[in-house]
């Protein structure tokens, strides 16, 4: 029978979610912070590691499942969401966290990114956004600004950058947030919110690449900037500025329009500062909800549980006669 996963009575510590594999990332890489926050979030929510499935693509970020002690799937470049959605469709009781880089998710995987939003599958997608392709020596990723020239580029970047937040908004993501790799508390809390959200959640995580991105470095994010003559931290929190991205009534078209417009405007603000937080959130039927309406049996069984054979004899016992009636002569 369909049952929702229940949390552990005694939650684990984040450290119990570290695997015994030594990380291959460069010293100072933002990937450490993100991995740690994912572990903290899983522990914080009391999730069972064996019911948690981390799915990644290819690149530095692709290695993240190996460092977390849950079931893990390190897939193909750009394809993590396709694999992840298949796993979720088959066993909706699994908590699926897809994780990947900006090239992986917004470049080669852009098609899947778009359609995962349209489906509103109930899962979390964490994108490690460092604006470069690290594992192939620092080429421009889809989020690097036009004209930007990190030290690894021979010429300034000739193409414009995509905006992950508004792209996700356009595609139908129902939870869209931005966080920062070295803001452990905010990142952990944002991941927890995303996991708890019922629907397709994107967290675009800004992340320094200490080896190839000498523009948006750890120091850059830590700097103070001048706003109206006063020095304020570069990184700030939307919620502290009175911004509320959560749609309270999804059926109120005016509220939805207003929240979407606000999200678009905030995501495109041209400023020296970096805004973290939930840009947009709404409750919409998930792919699973709709599937259950179309296929009533799925209200009783998940696909992986739906029986089709006698366990004693292993004989397949689906009765085909109804389907076969149409062409029986």
């Amino acid at each position, binding site marked *: 029978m369909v049952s929702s996963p229940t949390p*552990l009575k*005694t939650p684990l510590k984040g450290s*119990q979610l570290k*695997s015994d594999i030594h990380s291959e990332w460069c010293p100072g890489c933002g990937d450490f912070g993100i991995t740690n926050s994912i572990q903290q979030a899983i522990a914080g929510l009391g999730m*069972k*590691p*064996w*019911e948690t*499935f981390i*799915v990644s693509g*290819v690149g530095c970020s692709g*290695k993240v*499942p*190996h460092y977390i*002690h*849950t*079931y*893990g*799937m*390190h*897939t*193909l470049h750009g*394809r993590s969401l*396709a*694999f*992840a*959605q*298949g*796993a979720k*469709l*088959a*066993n909706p009781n*699994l908590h699926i966290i897809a994780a990947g880089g900006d090239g992986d998710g917004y470049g080669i995987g852009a*098609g*899947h990114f*778009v*359609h995962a939003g349209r489906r509103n599958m109930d899962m979390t997608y964490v994108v490690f956004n460092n604006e470069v392709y690290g594992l192939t020596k620092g080429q421009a990723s889809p989020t690097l600004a036009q004209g930007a020239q990190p030290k690894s580029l021979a010429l300034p970047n000739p193409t414009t950058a995509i905006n992950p937040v508004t792209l996700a908004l356009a595609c139908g993501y129902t939870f869209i947030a931005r966080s920062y790799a070295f803001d452990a508390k905010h990142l952990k809390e944002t991941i927890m919110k995303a996991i708890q959200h019922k629907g397709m959640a994107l967290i675009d995580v800004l992340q320094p690449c200490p080896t190839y991105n000498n523009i948006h470095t750890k120091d850059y994010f830590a700097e103070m900037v001048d706003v109206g003559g006063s020095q304020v931290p570069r990184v700030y929190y939307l919620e502290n500025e009175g911004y509320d991205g959560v749609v309270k009534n999804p059926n109120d078209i005016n509220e939805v329009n207003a929240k979407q417009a606000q999200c678009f405007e905030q995501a495109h603000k041209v400023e020296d500062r970096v805004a973290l937080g939930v840009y947009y959130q709404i409750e919409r039927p998930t792919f699973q909800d709709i599937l259950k309406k*179309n*296929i*009533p*049996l*799925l209200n009783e*069984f998940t*696909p*992986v549980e*739906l029986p*089709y*054979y006698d366990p004693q*004899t*292993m*004989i*397949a016992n*689906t009765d*085909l006669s109804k*389907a*076969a009636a*149409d*062409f*029986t*002569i």
Partner: protein
Amino acid sequence: MNRTHDLCWMIGGPQGTGVDSSATLFARSCAVAGYWVYGRREYHSNIKGEHSYFQVRVKTEPVYSHTDPVNLLATFENSTAQLHAFEIVDDGAFIYDPKVTDPAKLDLKPGVLLFPIPFDQILEEIAQATGKTQTSLSIIKNTIAVAASMALCQLDISAIEEALNGIFTGSKAKLVSLNMQAATKAYEIMKNNPDTAKFNYVMEKPATVPAKGSRYLLNAAVATGLAKLKAGCRLQTYYSITPAVDECIYLEDLSEYGLPVVQCEDEIAAINMAIGGGTTGVRASTSTSGPGMDLMTEGLGWAGINEVPVVMFNYMRGGPSTGLPTRHEQTDMLACLFSGHGEYPKIVMCPGDAREQFYDTFKAFNYADRYQTPVTFISDKLLANNTVCFPKFDDSNMKVDLGVMAGKDAKFDENNIEAALQKFPRFKITEDGISPRALPGMPGHIYWMTGDEHCEYGHITEEPEIRIPMQEKRMKKLDLAAREILPEDQLVVHGPENAPITIVSWGSTKGVILDTIKVLKEKHNLDVNFIQIRLLSPFPVDAFKKAMANVKRAVVVESSFGGQITQLITMRTGIQIEHEVLKWSGRPISETELVAAIQEINEKQSRKVVLSYGL
């Protein structure tokens, strides 16, 4: 008037005018009357307007192919008349609408009997009787053409009513009486025509009429759909492509069986989503055609190195590139065998007809689970679209094989979290290459997967001491499959022993080859047998060599330019087959063509016969 036991009927028209439903009605009516039928569907890559046609061959015994000249052509529009009139045999018949077609302007053989039918007049009478407009009834022209044909062949009109009852069910049931009004009128017109008695192809009654409900009339797309439900497939993904989409739409419509069918953004998503499903323990599959398979190969390689069960169905069509999107060809074989970079064990199956496709589809899921590897299943446009009559498939004793599973009874004990957190050697090196499987969700069996080479737990490694045995372990599964898969599922020899000619082939040519063997024996007293290769990987090397040991003259038959099976046989066995019958026009090989080709090879020892008949 003679009697025949073998009739080839054709109907044609612009796409979208009901050519398919007309042929379905004719085929079903004949089947209901106790005959065996084979229906061949030809259509353009276009939605409405281009020419499509459907041939239905009717026999008193099972039949698996079409013949070239037709005995009876029925049409209610002029393009079919112009295109196909020359194909009618010299004592055949032509049913047409005199309002749109002038037979004097057609390339008809002199003896062809002409049967003008006043299609519009019949529609008008029904329109008046029912108060409907004539335009809204125009689709009924198909029924009129079918009824006229049935009358000509002296088949009972009650078969049409029974067939209509089978086709129009549920909310459409009220269409039966409307269609029967038209059928009755057309039937009467033909019965009253004095020329009807001159028609030479009056169907002989079958010696034994099969019991009602004992047969299926279906195509392989439907057969596979059924088998997927039976095999417990629980995730079907696809990206729309002809002709694979037929199977997917069929399954989507059977939602009461609980199978989610997901239309994906592309074939890359389709295969990877299916693999994602496969990792969690559901039986998952995707269906595509050549261009889609090209896109899927990266995913198949991932499933190969991660030992994930998944089944990919490739319904071949004309290639390369978009090629002939709605036409038949058998040219993806080598691509299926060699797709994907690097080396991983592939099981590649190739059924020869809809019946085999039903049983093989079920087995494909068993093989995927047992050998924990992707299975490529090759079908084609001919099998997907052509309807055949078979005795009902027996699905009463089909056994599910899930392979070796670990941790099925794994329970979570809240007091023993350490045990629940245990990791599991998912890719354990074993003697036969099979590692026990556990699934995400099972406590105490945590493991990882990666497209990189990996250790037993699934973590990345580049160490030769792991790479060497790990690759060996995976590839060993092919040896095991070769030993375990039933011999008859690998290779079958049909026909008499010690024949002077042996046909070697695979896939959908099976039907025409079996029919040809019969004709060559009955009409030309020539013994021919047939080695049907049913498993392409692992290739049945020993069985093939054994079957070839006493062969006098071997001929490969294939719908391709290059003779792909000829190449594969040489590669796998060193045997070089000298004779080939090839066709790459996009149209399937007919019995007429193959009979002539084999005779030519027998008499003239021709090395290669190229076939090209058909529009």
